[in-house]
């Protein structure tokens, strides 16, 4: 194999991994954009969703039923978190809310494992994972499927934000909470809807990640992979989450393959952070994030 086609394979595999990070990052962006909360519990929600689905399915429930019930559970969980945990803390500084979601992730992770047990589950979504040859480069079918799901999700969210009434309210709330209140938007309703949506996004990401790595506790750690993506893409941009994910995924994989032999194994634990940080120091609000102007 030529050096170039090997390079492209590494690159494509990296991009595919990047899409997986983006899927998680999108859940963060949704909530951050509309309520200014960086929801560390997104990873725990993802674990909760995947574990709930796989446990129901393993207990004999048909695929679609299990999916529907998990869907409902995630919507309810999202709404409950917003209503009982975050709403009472409105007007607290963002960093306090961040620490609240840290506590939340402990509760959700603990509960998920308490309810469904701590063993590792396999998850088969019925998707072939045989590599395909595209333009001389081997590509995993499963990766293509994930990319397609991500594309559909981004399209759906874009339509939701751009063309529906509720999407307009989301955007208004994101622009200016006071103004949104003044023109009579019901912010609590919007927030609840956003958290429910984030629950659904967690479900989608959880199923894909679960199918790839197995459903187990470490799923909630994907949150750590998506944070550099957010830093790179900006906390409030869906496009940024996608592009940030692709950049992070690609650099991570390339670094691992080409630099790994020289500096050691396992550099993927931090290389993404270094890339994101280096970038941040040049552009403190990310690729697509809004520049914050300090008002005096």
């Amino acid at each position, binding site marked *: 194999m030529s050096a170039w086609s090997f390079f492209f394979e590494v690159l494509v595999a990296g991009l595919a991994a990047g899409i997986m990070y983006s899927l998680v990052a999108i859940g963060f962006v949704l909530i951050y954009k509309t309520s200014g909360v*960086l929801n560390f519990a997104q990873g725990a929600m993802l674990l909760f969703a995947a574990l709930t689905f796989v446990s129901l399915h393993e207990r004999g429930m048909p695929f679609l039923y299990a999916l529907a019930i998990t869907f409902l559970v995630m919507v309810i969980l999202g709404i409950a978190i917003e209503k009982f*945990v975050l709403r*009472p*803390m409105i007007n*607290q500084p*963002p*960093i*306090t809310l*961040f*620490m*609240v979601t*840290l*506590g*939340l*992730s*402990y*509760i*959700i*992770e*603990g*509960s998920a*494992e*308490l309810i469904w047990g*701590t063993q590792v589950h396999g998850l088969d979504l019925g998707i072939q994972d045989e590599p395909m040859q595209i333009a001389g480069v081997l590509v995993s079918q499963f990766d293509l499927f994930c990319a397609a799901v991500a594309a559909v999700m981004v399209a759906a969210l874009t339509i939701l934000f751009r063309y529906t009434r509720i999407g307009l309210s989301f955007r208004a709330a994101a622009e200016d909470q006071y103004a949104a209140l003044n023109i009579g938007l019901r912010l609590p309703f919007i927030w609840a809807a956003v958290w429910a949506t984030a629950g659904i996004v967690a479900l989608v990401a959880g199923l894909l990640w679960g199918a790839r790595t197995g459903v187990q506790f470490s799923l909630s750690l994907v949150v*750590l992979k998506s*944070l*550099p993506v*957010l*830093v790179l893409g900006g*906390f409030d941009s869906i496009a940024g989450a996608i592009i940030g994910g692709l950049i992070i995924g690609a650099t991570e994989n390339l670094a691992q393959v080409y630099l790994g032999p020289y500096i*050691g*194994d*396992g*550099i993927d*634990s*931090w290389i993404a*952070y*270094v890339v*994101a*940080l280096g970038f*941040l*120091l040049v552009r*403190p609000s990310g690729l697509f994030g809004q520049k914050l102007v*300090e008002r*005096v």
Partner: protein
Amino acid sequence: MSSAILERQANSQGLPGLKSFRGPFLVLLVFAVVIPQVHSDYLFDAILTPFLAISLAALGLNLLTGYAGQVSLGSAAFMAVGAFAGYNFLLRIPGLPLLAGLAFAGLTAAVIGIVFGLPSLRLRGFYLAVSTLATQFFVQWALTNISWFSNDDTSGVISPPPLHLGGFALDSPVRRYLLCLGVVAVLTFLAMRLVSGQTGRALIAVRDSELGARVLGVKVLRTKLFIFAVSSFYIGVAGALWSFAYLRTIEPDGFDLDRSFQILFVIIIGGLASIRGAFLGAAFIVVLPLLLSRAGAILLGPGFDSGLVDLVQKIFLGALIILFLRLEPAGLSALVGRLRIRRNAT
């Protein structure tokens, strides 16, 4: 509300003002003289020594996060730096006194703290918090992968040298406890002095309004780097004590992200920007699992699943974090403060 309570509230957010050191000194006396009379290795090895190390780490983090408002999710990395630096200094410089080794451990952590604190000059809030994760992962990786740090030991678990203080072997649980107590007491006293003066006010000013601080002539960048260094020093020494006196092994694995979160939780529960809070929170975090497993044993019989207790503890801890942030952001420290005022009033 009487002005005494309000003053207490102001202080609980940060500054002890000109209050005397009598209370803390009495507590120290109890810990140094009375408690060592107890004959229980378990008490010292499993409770008090880790309690002191965690307290010191939390104190360090509280200087950075509670006082200066710079949230760090990488405390465990600085503990690891302290532990490995202490190990290497004592190993490679024959005859280096233990206390000097600890000081070098702290200084090494302080240097690393300044390096990884540099992003704080440009980043705030979440961005800074995320950037501290880089510290966490990078340090853990470096200590695992660069074998020089562990003296090319392949087992991954290395033992600290025997501890001596002067000609005095620290070979019993009580003695190791007393070493920790001495170090922690001195560093705590210095921290109390630090936060009660002009520098302490400057830290809080940077936290509460960077712009306001800058306009008044606070050198914001220098202040941030300074407190990153001091905080890392404390956390580094704590890591060395944790490894040398409590675990008696040195390994990167124990200093993972969960440990960083644990230290953060200690200061949230104990009270942000409170010296006392670091100790109260640490006591709580150390004692909680013991209480829960006792409770588990009583409720579920002796054959209960310890994994279950871990999960319950996790949920419990998460819930406590949320409750404290919501109902008592000033933590246990404020609760204790209020109790004392009530007692004084009656």
